[in-house]
């Protein structure tokens, strides 16, 4: 199976070429995808932790989220 392709525009000539990625470029793509997955997992975990902390605080205060918004308005 051929590697994915990239578009290269040579600014000195205006010529656009379709070039197959090298194996090293494909490997770099995979590494960056892994970083992105890791970042997304961290963001999702933080969002979940924030939501749980918010719910716990509202319960401790004995008010709803809408009532909390009213207090801050």
């Amino acid at each position, binding site marked *: 199976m051929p590697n*994915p*392709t*990239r*578009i*290269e*525009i*040579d*600014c*000195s*000539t*205006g010529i*656009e070429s*379709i070039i197959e*990625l090298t194996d090293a470029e494909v490997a*770099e*793509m*995979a590494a*960056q*995808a892994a*970083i*992105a997955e890791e*970042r997304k997992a961290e963001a999702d975990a933080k*969002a979940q932790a924030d939501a749980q902390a918010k719910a716990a605080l509202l319960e401790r205060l004995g008010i709803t989220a809408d009532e909390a918004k009213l207090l801050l308005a």
Partner: protein
Amino acid sequence: MANTFELIASSTLGSAATNIEFASIPATFTDLKLVYSLRSDNGDDYFALTLNGSSSSFTSRDIQGNGSSASSANRTDNLLVYTQDPSSMTANTFSSGELYFPNYAGSTNKSFSQDTAYENNGTGAGMALRAGLWSNTAAITTIRIAKASGNFVQYSTAYLYGVKNA
């Protein structure tokens, strides 16, 4: 647009591709501005920015919002979020954004800024502002925006402008 802007090169994808690269960028301008409109064929909303073939020595701070929450973060990689409409967004919609590189041909580290947005009619949108630094003193001669997986879809566009201060 100011008359000091000059289109260096552009590309409208005739078919899907993983990368769009501007090579052999002339050093005859003061600044560079890359304007893009992109859509992904998978769920990713980010691309990797590569300068002169380098994907390292990038740091940035961004602030982002999606209609229900806002956040900011420090980054130590070259992955820039909210730069393309994921495939789950409204059909046939594309992102809108730009990257600005001041003093790109100088001999100092290269700063850049970005504003970028995608949209999903009726249900959400995302936007981000970013201040970034590529800690490298080389003149920028190549800019690549790259998917980490999947492709930019057909009709995605990228325009590279040169800006002169006079």
